[in-house]
């Protein structure tokens, strides 16, 4: 709990106040109030669209589509938090996504079969392609990070240059045309009915994910007991456990309520000689791979930000660069690492984008920088540095995407979506700074 997202964090020592308000009960659970507020806002947005659409919006299929659409931006936003927290910016993410996506497409359609001698039947082509793409992303990140941290060129300039020049490279790589035709296995990364793990696996994953939540709560409590620190009330611990597991299993149930399209199910039945029941064949899609990837990235990034020295240094540097330097932290190396991380995350997002398109076009990723920065900022990341959380940024991405998807669902054009997104961005940040001023 060191990376405090709020200027007035909840002290563990506060005795339960006499007047029991909802806010004080919430405080005892030590839940981040800001994150809680964002969840409420997200729910409000979804419910509003559901009412406006006459109840057709809030369906599992639609929610899964929305979530898959948000994954690319959300994955990059987790890294953008680290970059902005350490008082830098990365404007090049969209172009990095573009060049890596094009690389995946060219690898599988041209370079692997024609240059590397790995034909379509070569084993684990998708893993090799993904590995090369991630390596390319990391290399681009390392180069930009080196120029920023060691040469001392401002990140805004370096990544603005990256934005322009890397997009140009996409053009040269592709000779100006879209490339399509990825391996079937690679396309699974993009989700869809086939790119999901299925009903049974989703339940197993849900239950397996539930165990560490409980284990973490128990070990955390034990740890604090061991040192004689104040602990949360038992009811709060239990509530957190129930909410955590409930949320995980609820999501699993929700994902499983998303069924294969009838045509696909029937085709599958015909191919496998399964009789189609009277009400139609219901096959659960379960969780799509891109969402599992996003959850994994969020967990790993949160772990890095809060449980690793690297994360601590990023936040400390953002809070006071001089203090971090004087404390003997290798600040340049830390900054360089944030950009390498960004490159890797861009490569993962590029895999999702390319898999979803079954190829790559010249403009894949263009504009991502703005969506990603917006997601991080709506999620509570401050440009002043030192403040921001990874789950917040992921939620921010979901808030922005639910607006875009919902408006699209309601038949509002892209320009209309942009108008709303822009207003929400300003409102969110305005509300935040109002709260901070009041809080301090």
């Amino acid at each position, binding site marked *: 709990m060191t990376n405090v997202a709020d200027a007035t964090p909840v002290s563990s020592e506060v005795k339960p106040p006499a007047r029991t308000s909802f806010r004080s009960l919430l405080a005892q659970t030590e839940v981040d109030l800001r994150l809680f507020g964002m969840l409420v806002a997200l729910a409000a947005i979804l419910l509003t669209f559901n009412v406006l659409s006459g109840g057709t919006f809030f369906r599992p299929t639609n929610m899964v589509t929305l979530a898959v659409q948000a994954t690319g931006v959300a994955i990059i936003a987790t890294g953008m938090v680290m970059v902005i927290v350490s008082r830098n910016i990365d404007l090049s993410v969209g172009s990095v996504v573009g060049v890596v996506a094009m690389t995946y497409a060219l690898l599988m359609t041209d370079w692997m079969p024609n240059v590397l001698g790995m034909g379509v039947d070569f084993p684990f082509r998708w893993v090799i392609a993904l590995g090369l793409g991630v390596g390319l992303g990391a290399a681009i990140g390392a180069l930009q990070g080196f120029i920023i941290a060691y040469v001392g060129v401002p990140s805004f300039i370096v990544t603005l240059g990256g934005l322009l020049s890397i997009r140009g490279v996409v053009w040269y790589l592709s000779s100006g045309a879209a490339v399509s035709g990825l391996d079937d296995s690679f396309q699974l990364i993009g989700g869809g009915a086939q790119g999901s793990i299925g009903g049974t696996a989703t339940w197993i994953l849900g239950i397996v994910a539930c165990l560490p939540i409980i284990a973490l709560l128990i070990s955390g409590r034990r740890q604090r007991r061991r040192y004689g*620190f104040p602990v949360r009330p038992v009811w709060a611990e239990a509530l957190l456990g129930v909410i955590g597991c409930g949320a995980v299993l609820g999501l699993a149930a929700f994902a499983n309520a998303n069924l294969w399209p009838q045509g696909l199910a029937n085709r599958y039945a015909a191919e496998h000689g399964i009789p189609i029941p009277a009400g139609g064949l219901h096959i659960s899609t379960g969780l799509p791979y891109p969402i599992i990837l996003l959850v994994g990235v969020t967990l790993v990034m949160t772990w890095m930000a*809060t*449980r*690793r020295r690297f994360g601590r240094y990023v936040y400390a540097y953002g*809070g006071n660069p001089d203090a971090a330097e004087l*404390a003997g932290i290798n600040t340049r190396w830390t900054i360089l690492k944030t950009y390498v991380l960004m490159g890797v995350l861009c490569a993962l997002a590029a895999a999702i984008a390319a898999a979803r398109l079954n190829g790559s076009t010249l403009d894949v990723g263009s504009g991502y920088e703005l969506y990603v920065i917006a997601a991080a900022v709506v999620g509570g990341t401050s440009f002043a540095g*030192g403040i921001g959380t990874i789950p917040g940024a992921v939620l921010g991405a979901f808030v922005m995407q639910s607006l875009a998807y919902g408006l699209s669902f309601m038949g509002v054009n892209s320009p209309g979506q942009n108008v709303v997104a822009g207003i929400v961005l300003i409102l969110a940040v305005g509300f935040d700074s109002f709260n901070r001023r009041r809080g*301090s």
Partner: protein
Amino acid sequence: MTVAQPTRLVEMRDINVAFGGVHAVRDVTIDLYAGEVVGLVGGNGAGKSTLMRVLSGAHPADSGEILIDGTKVSITNPRDAKALKIETIYQTLALADNVDAPANLFLGRELTSLGMLDDSAMEDATRKVMGRLNPNFTRFKAAVRSLSGGQRQAVAIARAVHFNARILIMDEPTAALGPAETAQVRDLIRQLKLEGIGIFLISHDIHDVFDLSDRISVMYHGRLVGTVKKSEVTSDDVLAMIIMGKAPEEVTERDLAALHR
């Protein structure tokens, strides 16, 4: 001049630092014994902070040498200094405002278990050391931004205490504090001195310096004017050194008269 003690804890010899054309520190030689407080005084831009930044590794010297326990050492960055048990409390406090007290105390030297930050162990250690320095302090999970000036100073000092500093550099430790907090810090300095820690105390408050120091080194425009034993001088002597840049024996009656006019 020197106290009869076996070895000097710190000896800085002929230190020179220049920023571009400005010669901030010029041929300064200064020393410190265990359990001793040496006050470092001088006007603005006299070079005291720069001299101490050399010792803390924040800025390398252009020439000169540093000896710890009589052995020549090389200090090129803050990590080197910390390895030699030299801790610094900066004028600007040098705390990361957005993280909590344990994170600041262990910044750069975090406790880990299995490669992960061990926040509970760090909080425990912080509770122990803060218990000694400021028993009323309870806000271990609050960002230090929200702490009072005295509490923040306590966190900065706790860092030095926890890591068993042998040499402590304090740059204006009471500048941002109220009277009660200032008294607290003074008590703390006396306590640390008793524990055998050598302290360089930079201050522009001549009363602070006279109250706490054993010896006083005066700097003037980058030069060392001289080092005097507190017991052998008056505050007027020291003031004259600060303002005129002359050693006590060089100061004339006319100088003193001018000083008091």
